[in-house]
């Protein structure tokens, strides 16, 4: 028995010693430099692989950041915390803008006229491709929820009214839905932005045509443009656009808009602020 133990000890000690040395030796000899920063950056990323940064997954972005090819504020899923972390690693400071997606259409089943009875594949893209637009309005929301399908953060849901509803708490502003929407009527807006916004994308310049198609469409009356005391609103491509540098959130445009397609971001859309207490608000 003692012999067995001794032989064992001798043999294993020898073997292990050799292996240990060999390992250490080869580790040195075959060393391939890999920037440790890549791993560091990768660890700091949330790992959702959402592609919101425009790189192939978190690994791709990590490498791009570590090699300085990409800015540190691209990760929208991780938000400010990630950006800060990446900035620390890379020794730069940058603040990611915290954005959310907003749907620029209020054309519910009730309010927007349907073009016909669409019976094809129930996705927005397919519907748009084969019917131009399932709504009489060529710019309106198709209502088949392509945006909902791509959202990785559970921030979008199809409402019964035929429009997707954004859950702004969950929205990370990754922009996947904006990318996916065939009508391009989702847009990213800074979460803390204040001011008015027109929730309509109809570019048809003929007022009669818009009225025919949608009850909440911009009828190009330009009342908003004329009534804005700050001259912050201009017509661009047939829809009014607010210049947020000038907008004071006075709410006149919202009040004036005859079809109610002008809304206040902070109160009506994002709900970041309570409405001006004109009336008692729950």
């Amino acid at each position, binding site marked *: 028995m003692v012999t067995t133990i001794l032989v064992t000890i001798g043999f294993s000690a020898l073997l292990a010693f050799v292996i240990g040395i060999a390992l250490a030796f080869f580790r040195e000899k075959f060393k391939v430099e890999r920037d440790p920063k890549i791993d560091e950056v990768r660890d700091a990323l949330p790992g959702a692989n959402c592609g919101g940064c425009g790189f192939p997954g978190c690994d791709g972005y990590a490498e791009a950041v570590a090699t300085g090819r990409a800015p540190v504020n691209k990760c929208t899923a991780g938000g400010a915390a990630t950006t800060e972390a990446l900035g620390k690693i890379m020794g730069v400071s940058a603040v990611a803008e915290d954005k959310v997606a907003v749907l620029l259409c209020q054309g519910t089943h009730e309010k927007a006229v349907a*073009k*016909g009875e669409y*019976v*094809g*594949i129930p*996705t927005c*893209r*397919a519907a748009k*491709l*084969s*019917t*131009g637009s399932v709504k*009489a309005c*060529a710019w309106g929301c198709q209502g088949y929820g392509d945006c909902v399908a791509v959202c990785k953060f559970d921030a979008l849901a199809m409402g019964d009214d035929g429009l997707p509803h954004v859950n702004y708490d969950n929205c990370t502003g990754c922009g996947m839905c904006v990318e996916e929407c065939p009508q391009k009527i989702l847009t990213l807006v800074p979460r803390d932005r204040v001011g008015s916004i027109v929730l309509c994308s109809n570019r*048809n*310049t*003929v007022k009669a*045509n818009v009225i025919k198609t949608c009850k909440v469409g911009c009828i190009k009356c330009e009342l908003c443009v004329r009534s804005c005391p700050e001259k912050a609103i201009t017509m661009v491509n047939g829809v009014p656009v607010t210049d947020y540098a000038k907008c004071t959130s006075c709410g006149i445009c919202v009040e004036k808009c005859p079809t109610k397609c002008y809304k206040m971001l902070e109160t009506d859309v994002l709900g970041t602020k309570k409405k001006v207490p004109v009336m008692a608000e729950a």
Partner: protein
Amino acid sequence: MSIKTFKGGAHPPERKERSEEKSIERVTSVSQVVIPVNQHFGAPIQPLVKVGEYVKAGQKIADAEGRMTVPVHASVAGIVKKIEPRLQSNNTEGLCIIIEPKEPEEGESSTDFMPPLDPFTCSKEEALARIRAAGIVGMGGAGFPAHVKLAPSKPISVVIANAAECEPYLTIDARTLVEMPEKVVEGVAMVMKIVNAPEGVIAIEENKKFAIPHVEKALEAFSKARPGINIRIQELKTKYPQGGEKMLITAITGREVPSGGLPMDVGCVVQNVGTLCAIVDAFKEGKPLIERGFTVTGAACKTPKNLVAPIGTLVSDLVKAGILEIDEENLARVVFGGPMMGVAVPGYEIPVQKNTSGVLLMSRDEAQYYTEETCIRCGRCMRACACRLSPALLAVAVEAGDYREAEKIGLLDCIECGTCSFVCPAHRQLVQKFRVGKQILRALKQKESQNAR
């Protein structure tokens, strides 16, 4: 004469008998025309006229520089009422010029045609310039500019007049062959001259045999007038999509247009008979493409007809004028074009365009639609596919979002003929999937090439 065909395809119900016997009727007076500015496959063009301006029939009203552009002409003499976006037959809104017909003032001609030109004597450049000036595009469906097609960069051996008319319902090409065979023959001869081709073939499907004697007679007369031009008739098996450019070339010459290539790569030029007639008119009368023949049919159409009407005529105006009668109760679907490749539109208040070969007014019974069921992998689509693709597998790749794989197995080779969707026992919306897939794939590729730059 052997009857030729290609591999694959299907036999949808023909339903041509409704209008097959009806001779072509000419529509002369309309209450207004709505002429879309962009009716061709290529770069967009701009209107040249202003609201309130008086235009003559045949006057150029829109044009732009560029190889892939084709001008648009006023189809009637009258006043430009509006220039605004209207719904076109491809279901999108586009800029349209609306003209209200008005008799010209005394002594003025109502038309503004070009002088005649003899294509057999003039130079190739002149001939091509004339074809462009006449605003001629492929009238079979796609609207490809004819002057581009007729200026191939490779030698051409065969000119094919496409009278296969494989789409069910449509009969306008057959009627053209019966009523104006000499125009078709002359058109083939002109195109042969322009592209310098030794052979011309008029391809006719078996189910239009009745037109063959007419064409033969015209051929005979033509060869007497201009000996030495080699044009023959080729009978083809009745099968969809026999009239597809690629299938036609394969059936007649046995050659296959390479993937991503054009008919000229295998020495062929294919022109629809309607286009050929328009070319003849452009040379002989100097008349631009301002009117076209089309079939109005379908079970909800009480008066199936073959019509020739000014471009821009609204189908609803034809109904108002009493030229057409529609069973409005029964009408369930309106299709511009044939039932296999045409576009379902939301109504018939839509103008006839340069590429409108027919207007289908389908009744409730005809207008079938199904919800998609799961693919049972029967393989019918694969056997039917004229391009020998695997629609079932392609659909899986597209559904899975694997566009690279889809491209590898031929997504971009699909000609969207609709045969696979027709034969699918599970009523899968295959073609629609491929259209969506192609759109996304192209966008992806564009993005990639931008990134690469």
